[in-house]
C-alpha cells in the first residue's frame, strides 16, 4: 500500500499498451489547453508521478458539481476516477459510509499528509458555529479546516466553494461563505461556475495530477487556461453585438436568427469562463447557443446581481453599450495592477479592448 503508483505504472499493471498510454497523454495535453509541443512533458509527468490521492468534501451544495465532473467527455469519468486519481473520500461515489468511512478519511489525512489534493464542493456554513451543515455528527467547517491542514493543494469546485453561491445570496440565512478564508494560508485553486464546465473540472485535477503543481492562476486564483477570457470575447454571437444586431424579445426574429442576447440581460460581457470557447459537452452548446442569456454563474455573488433580465446591472440601469467595455476594462486593469503582474498578453488584450471601444465611439453607431 505504501508504494505510490504513477499513471504509467497503472497502465502497465492493467496490461495496456504504451501506444494507448501515449494516446491518453495526447488527449490530456489538448484538454488542458496546452500546445502539442508540451506532449513530451505530459508523458514525462504521467510516467513518473504516483497516482494522486484526492479527498472530495461536500459542504452546503446541490451536488451539481460532482454531477458535472462525471459528465466529462475527455477524460471520461471512469478514466479519471480509476486511472488518474485515487478518490479516497467522496460522498457521491464512495462505496462506504458512516463510521468506517469517517475513519478512512482520518487515515487518509494522516497517511498522505502533505500529499493529497483536497477538492471542495459547496459553501461553508459559518453561522452559529457551523451547525447548519453537519456531517458525521460534526460541523462541516471543522472537517474542512482539519482536511485543509495536511492538503498538498486545495481546489474550490464551483461558485459555492469559491464565493458562497446560492445559499450566500441575500439574506444569507446560514452565514455561508467561500472556503478560502477557512483553509489557512494555502493557495486555493478557484474553479467557479454553477456548475463549472465538466472538462474544466477534470482538466484542473489532471493538471495537478500530471505536473504536480498548480496551473497558472489569475489574480482571483482561477486557472488562466479556463478563465482567461470573457464569454463575450469568445462568443460566436459577438459579431452581432459589434454590428448592433440584438434579439429584443425571446423567440423574436433576432432570437431565431441567433443574434446577440445582450438586450435580454446576457452577462457574457462581464463573465470570465470557458463557455464561449470550450462550450459544454465538448463543443456542443452553451446557454447563449441555446438562446438563453448568460447569467454570469462564474461571477462572485452573481445571484445578487439580479434580475437576470436586466442589462448588466452592475454598470448602471440599462447598461450603456458604449460604456460597458470601458468599465469592464477598468475593473480588469485594477485587478491586474493589484496583483502586480501585468502580462504582455493582458496588456495587449486591454489595448485591443480600448481600441475597439474607441473605434465604436468614433465610427460605427451602436444601437441601444
Amino acid at each position, binding site marked *: 500500500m505504501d*508504494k505510490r*503508483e504513477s499513471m504509467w505504472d*497503472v497502465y502497465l499493471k492493467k*496490461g495496456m499498451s504504451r501506444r494507448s498510454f501515449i494516446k491518453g497523454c495526447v488527449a490530456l495535453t489538448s484538454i488542458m489547453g496546452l500546445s502539442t509541443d508540451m506532449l513530451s512533458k505530459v508523458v514525462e509527468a504521467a510516467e513518473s508521478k504516483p497516482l494522486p490521492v484526492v479527498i472530495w468534501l461536500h459542504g452546503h451544495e*446541490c*451536488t451539481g458539481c*460532482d454531477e*458535472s465532473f462525471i459528465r*466529462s467527455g475527455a477524460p471520461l469519468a471512469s478514466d479519471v*476516477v480509476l486511472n488518474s486519481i*485515487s*478518490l*479516497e473520500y467522496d*460522498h*457521491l461515489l*464512495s*462505496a*462506504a*459510509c*458512516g463510521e*468506517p*468511512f*469517517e*475513519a*478512512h478519511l482520518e487515515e487518509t489525512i494522516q497517511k498522505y499528509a502533505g500529499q493529497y489534493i483536497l477538492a471542495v464542493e459547496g459553501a461553508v456554513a459559518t*453561522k452559529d458555529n457551523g451547525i*447548519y*451543515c*453537519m*456531517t458525521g*455528527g*460534526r*460541523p*462541516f467547517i471543522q472537517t474542512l479546516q482539519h482536511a485543509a491542514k495536511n492538503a498538498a493543494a486545495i481546489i474550490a469546485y464551483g461558485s459555492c466553494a*469559491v*464565493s*458562497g453561491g*446560492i445559499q450566500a445570496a*441575500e*439574506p*444569507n*440565512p*446560514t452565514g455561508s461563505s467561500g472556503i*478560502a*478564508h477557512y483553509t489557512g494560508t494555502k493557495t486555493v485553486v478557484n474553479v467557479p461556475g454553477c*456548475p463549472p464546465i465538466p472538462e474544466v473540472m477534470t482538466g484542473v485535477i489532471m493538471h495537478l495530477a500530471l505536473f504536480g503543481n498548480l496551473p497558472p492562476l489569475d489574480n482571483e486564483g482561477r486557472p488562466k487556461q479556463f478563465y482567461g477570457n470573457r464569454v463575450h470575447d469568445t462568443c460566436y454571437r459577438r459579431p452581432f453585438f459589434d454590428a448592433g444586431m440584438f434579439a429584443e424579445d*425571446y423567440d423574436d426574429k433576432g432570437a*431565431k*436568427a*441567433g443574434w446577440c442576447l445582450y438586450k435580454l440581460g446576457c452577462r457574457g460581457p462581464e463573465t470570465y469562463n470557458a463557455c464561449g470557447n470550450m462550450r*459544454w*459537452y465538448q463543443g456542443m452548446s452553451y446557454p447563449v447557443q*441555446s*438562446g*438563453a442569456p448568460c447569467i454570469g454563474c462564474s461571477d462572485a*455573488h452573481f445571484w*445578487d446581481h*439580479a*434580475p437576470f*433580465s436586466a442589462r448588466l446591472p452592475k454598470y448602471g440601469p440599462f447598461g450603456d453599450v458604449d460604456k460597458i467595455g470601458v468599465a469592464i476594462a477598468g475593473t480588469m486593469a485594477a485587478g491586474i495592477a493589484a496583483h502586480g503582474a501585468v502580462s504582455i498578453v493582458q496588456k495587449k488584450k486591454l489595448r485591443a479592448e480600448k481600441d475597439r471601444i474607441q473605434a465604436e465611439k468614433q465610427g460605427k453607431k451602436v444601437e441601444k
Partner: protein
Amino acid sequence: MKRVVVDPVTRIEGHLRVEIKVDEGTGKVEDALSSGTAWRGLELVMNDRDPRDAWAYIQRICGVCTTAHALASLRSVEDALGITIPKNANYIRNIMAASQTVQDHVIHFYHLHALDWVSPVEALKADPIATANLQNTVLSTYKLPFAGPAGINTEAYPKDFPQATPQYFATVKQKIQGIVESGQLGIFAAQWWDHPDYQLLAPEVHLLAVAHYLEMLDKQRELVTPHVIFGGKNPHPHYVVGGMPCSISMEDGNAPINSARLAIVDRAINTARTLVNNFYLPDLLAIGTAYVKAGYVDGGGLAKERVLGFGAYPIEPFTGTTNGGFHEGLLVRCNGVVENFAQGLGKATFYEFKPQDIADPAVLGESIQHSWYEYPGKDGESLHPWSGVTKAKFTGPKTGTQSSWKELNEEGKYSWLKTPTWCGKMAEVGPLARYIIIYTKARKNVLGQPTWAEQLMLDQIDAVSKVLNLAPEVWMPTMVGRTAVRGLEAQLAAEISKFFFDKLITNIKSGDTKVANTEKWEPGRWPKEAHGVGLYEAPRGALSHWIVIKDGKIANYQAIVPTTWNACPRDDKAGHGAYEMAMMDTKVKVPDKPLEILKVIRSFDPCMACATHLFNAKGEKIKVVTTDPYTGTRVDD
C-alpha cells in the same frame, strides 16, 4: 438493544444521518430515525426576487435531479400569472423531464445503489467465460419487450449491446485486480465487503455488474444531451417563463434549434432506449429475482399503507394548475392516494387528488413537531404551504454537544426536514407510488381508457409479476420492488422522450416554430397579487412548488419535495415517515454493519439538499452580519 448510527449516509445527494435501535438477537429494528443534517435556507433567498428568475435560483436546490425544480417552479409562476406556454415548449420540457428521469435512474441504479448489492471483491472470484455466458442468459431471459407508439423510427438497429466476450470480462477483472493489489482502493475503500449479503449472488453476477458500473459511468452523460441542446448545459440547463429560450428556425445556421440540433436529441433518445432495454432492465431483474427468491421481500414500510402522486406529463399545453387545467390532459394520471395496497386490491382504497385539494389546508400541510423549527402557535399544528411560517430552532442532540453529536433525540426535535402530510397522514412518494396508483386505478376501473404510457406501466407490472411468480401487492411494496419499479420507469421515460420528440417534429412540420409566449413578460401586465402552484413528478416522487407574487416580486416561496415526504421526521399523530417505516420493516444481520438499512434507504434514492432547505419565508429574515459581501467572501455572525 443496540443503537447504531450511520452518518454520513453516502451515495446519495446531500447530508443524511440515520440511527436505529436494533435487537441483536433477532435483528429486528425496534425504532429508527432519519435526520437531514444540513439547512441552506433557499426559500428565504427567494424573497423579493423577480418571479421570472425563480427557476434559476430554485433549480439549485439540487444538481442531481437538476431541472425538476426548475420545471416545477416555472409551472408555479405560469400558474400564478396565467401564462399558457406554446406547444413546442411543452414538448421540449417533457423531453427534458423524461430524459433527466432516465439519466437519474441509471445513475442511481449503477452508481449510487449497485454497491449495496455487488462487490468488486466478489467479482475477483468470477470466471470470465462463465460471465460471458451469464450475460447472454441475462439478456435473453430478462428483457422486457415494451415500446411506446414511436412514429418516426430513426434507428436502423439498436447500437448499444452489452459485450459478452470472455476477453472483455477478463480485462475488467484484471482492472479490478490491479486496483485491489495497489492498495489504493479509492471509491471502493472502507466498505463492509465482508457482509454476508454479498455472498447472495454468484461471483459472475458481481463481475458483470461491476463491468456495467464502469460502462454506465461513461455513458450516462449521453442521456442528458437533450438538456445541452435545448437548455445550453447540464447540470442546470436554462429556461424562460412562458416557454423555452431555444428558438426554432430552419432558415439560419445560428438558430438554437434546427434539423442538425434535433438530430443530436434524437440520437440521445435512441441511446437512452437502448441502454435501458439492454443493460439496466436485464441487470436489475436478474439481481432482483435472486434477492426475491432468497426471501428478501421486506423494506416496504409505508408503501404498504399509503402512497401519493400528483400526475405527470401534460400531453398538450394547459391553462393552469389551480384551475384544473393541468389534470385534464396528463399522460400518466397518477394523481391521488392509494391506501393499504399490500392487503390486496379488495382492501386497497383510492382517493383522487383533485384541483380543489390544492388550496385546502385540510388536505396538504406541514408540521414541525420533530423538526428544528418553531411555529407561532403550537408545535403540533399543521400549516398549508401558502400560509406556513418557519423559524429555525436548533435544539441540539440528545447526547453529545451541539457541534459533536453522539445520539439525536427522537423524543424531541432531530431533523432539518419538516413533516408534510396528506389529510393529516404520512405518505410515500416516488416511482413505486406512481406505479401502485396507476395499477390500483386500472384494476378498480377508475382509470378509464389507459393512455399508451399507462398501458405500458400495467404491462410491465404484469411481466415482472410473471417473472417473480408473485402478485404485485406482494413484490411491489418492498425494498426490491422500489428499486425494480424505478427501472421500469426508466424504460417508460425513455419511450416518453421519444413520444414527445415525435410530437415536436410533427408540430414543427405543420409550420409552428413558436417556443416562448412573452405576452405577459412585463410585470406591468401581472395582477397585483397572485398565487400559483407547480405540480411535478420528479424522479424521486411528487413535487410541489408554491409561490405568492405581490407587486411584481416574490412574497412567499415554498417547495414540498419528494425526499421531504419520504425522509421526514415522525409526527405524534401521523406516525413515522417512509424512511423510518422502511427501516423498521427491515431485518439486520450484523448490527455493526447494517448494510440492509443502507440498502433500503438507498432504494428511495435520497436527495437531501432537496429536502433540507427552508420551508417558508414569511417575513422571517434572519439577521446576518456580513463583513464584506462583495469584495471579500468572509462572513461572520
